[in-house]
């Protein structure tokens, strides 16, 4: 019996050895080497095009299935559940006043508040920004499907194959790459840190950072299109961008070198942070320092004043939004008084939703989702630099930058605070509404006393 197993054993060993070698060679040739030099074979774009065709076919099948059962396919419309008319409080109430002698208060005034209130219950601008965007066509991921009963056996089979490919082939590949990328980052930045400060160190640090981020980009199968690269951020400035997920950092940093800003973490993140700062100056704050706004502002201004240091990368929204809108920018980074380089990032949700719903999923769960999606496809627009104008305060400047980013990325520009994801809205907004209404009431009494 044993002699029978023996050659079999060595055969398996040989096969395993060969497949590992082949695996790693392919990895090296097709992914790591291009990452080092920043070139691309175009495989990912081809992959993306074939996926699009597949999704369209899948949606057509579902539509056909739905038609056979005489039902409608659930199609989320991007313009909402209801049609809202943007009429202001004053207009509405004036309209409601009956003709003739104007009474100060009318019992029908309540209709305005009532209707607006119920409209906001059915469809409001804020709560829908904190959940993943809905898709028009199905992308063969269970997590984004609303039409379960219309799936034929052929589609189910395709979905099954998709699961196998994504979890069996793509996921292990990506995890390997991720570990490689992060490992190389830690090791190489520590090595570069041993060099004396000077041009060589900066040059090496740039190269090392870029290479490792590029490997990470491939670890996510991220297909990124950069537009207007002539506006890329330069030293002595701050780069601001809209925030959808932690991946934003990797996407931007694989195309340019930035100084990162953030809180000091423990664990693996801490190790990475400590290693990175050896190679070039990043800004890491202790937990206690974050509360001290003056300290934060001072450190940022000092960094920016030094022309040899890299541009700072900041996400002024302060939290992850689902990439359909841009929410209020915190004014801290806009008070520093240097050039601001706005960047707009827009993800294509068909291939994998990059939004991190931090109240629902933890980081590990999120990364797992990311690495088992088809791909992460996004566009990055570098906008021309902006500076604070005369007579403009930090808040107005922040809003101006935000509007530019929203326009370029095709996102809705909202004044609401991203902090509403977790916190309550401030009372002062309700008081504004009350003041407006009071003006309408009192205003009409002034007219009466005049006549």
């Amino acid at each position: 019996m044993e002699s029978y197993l023996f050659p079999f054993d060595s055969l398996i060993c040989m096969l395993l050895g060969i497949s590992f070698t082949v695996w790693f060679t392919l990895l090296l040739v097709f992914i790591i080497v291009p990452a080092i030099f920043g070139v691309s074979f175009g495989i990912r774009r081809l992959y993306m095009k074939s996926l699009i065709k597949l999704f369209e076919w899948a949606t057509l099948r579902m539509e056909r299935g739905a038609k056979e059962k005489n039902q409608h396919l659930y199609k989320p419309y991007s313009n909402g559940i209801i049609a809202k008319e943007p009429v202001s409080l004053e207009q509405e109430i004036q309209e409601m006043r009956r003709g003739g002698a104007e009474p100060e208060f009318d019992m029908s005034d309540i209709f305005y508040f009532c209707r607006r209130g119920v409209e906001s219950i059915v469809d409001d601008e804020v709560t829908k920004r904190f959940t993943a965007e809905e898709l028009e066509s199905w992308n063969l991921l269970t997590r984004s499907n609303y039409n379960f009963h219309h799936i034929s056996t052929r589609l189910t089979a395709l979905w099954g194959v998709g699961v196998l490919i994504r979890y069996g082939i793509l996921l292990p590949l990506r995890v390997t790459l991720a570990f490689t990328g992060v490992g190389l980052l830690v090791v190489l930045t520590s090595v570069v840190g041993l060099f004396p400060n000077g041009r060589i160190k900066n040059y090496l640090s740039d190269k090392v950072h870029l290479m490792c981020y590029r490997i990470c980009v491939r670890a996510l199968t991220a297909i990124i299109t950069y537009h207007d690269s002539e506006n890329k951020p330069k030293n002595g400035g701050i780069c601001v961008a809209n925030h959808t997920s932690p991946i934003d950092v990797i996407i931007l940093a694989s195309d340019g070198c930035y100084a990162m800003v953030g809180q000091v973490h423990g664990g693996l993140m801490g190790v990475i942070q400590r290693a990175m700062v050896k190679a070039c100056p990043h800004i890491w704050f202790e937990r206690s320092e974050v509360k001290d706004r003056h300290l934060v502002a001072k450190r940022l201004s000092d960094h920016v004043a030094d022309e040899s240091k890299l541009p700072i990368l900041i996400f002024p929204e302060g939290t992850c939004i689902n990439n359909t809108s841009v929410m209020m920018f915190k004014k801290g980074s806009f008070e520093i008084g240097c050039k601001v380089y706005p960047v707009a990032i827009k993800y294509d949700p068909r291939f994998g939703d990059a939004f991190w719903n931090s109240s629902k999923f933890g980081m590990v769960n999120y990364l797992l989702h990311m690495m088992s999606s088809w791909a992460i496809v996004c566009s990055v627009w570098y906008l021309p630099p902006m500076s604070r104008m005369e007579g403009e305060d930090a808040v107005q400047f922040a809003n101006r930058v935000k509007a530019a980013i929203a326009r370029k990325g095709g996102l809705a520009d909202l004044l609401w605070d991203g902090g509403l994801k977790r916190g309550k809205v401030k009372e002062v907004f309700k008081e504004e509404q009350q003041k407006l209404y009071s003006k309408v009431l009192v205003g009409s009494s002034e007219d009466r006393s005049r006549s």
Partner: protein
Amino acid sequence: MKETGFSHSQITRLYSHFHSLDKGENGALSREDFQRIPELAINPLGDRIINAFFPEGEDQVNFRGFMRTLAHFRPVEDNEKNKDPTSGEPLNSRANKLLFAFRLYDLDRDDKISRDELLQVLRMMVGVNISDEQLGSIADRTIQEADTNGDMSISFSEFTKVLEKVDVEQKMSIRFLH
């Protein structure tokens, strides 16, 4: 669900939205779930509107209750398409819309709007911007104009009479997309 008059796709979409508001994931909404909506939280009558969803003494509203309340805001024209003579008065009739608004004023649900209740609701709408005396005289004037049977409070029929010239159907309707 037929009594609400919503179409199949509207119900699906509203269910999806109901689910996203339901943070506790227990199939029902509590008052906190509503208060989490910023645009509703800044509405001066936000609390009254939230209250309208909850039946007497309850603090959870399920999807059926949610839809029944929303059904009051369907436009009246939509009824023409699915006229069912046996279903009785639809939830979005003029009378039912007026009743919904009446209940926003009627804080203790005794089918009468007293001077006190009117004052409280007015105070909610204007905040701190109008004095007690001015508000009091507004309330008195309103009751005087509406009260026909002299009991110093406004009943539902008096309320209806006062608003008979107002286009209630349009003011209290939301255009639901199909």
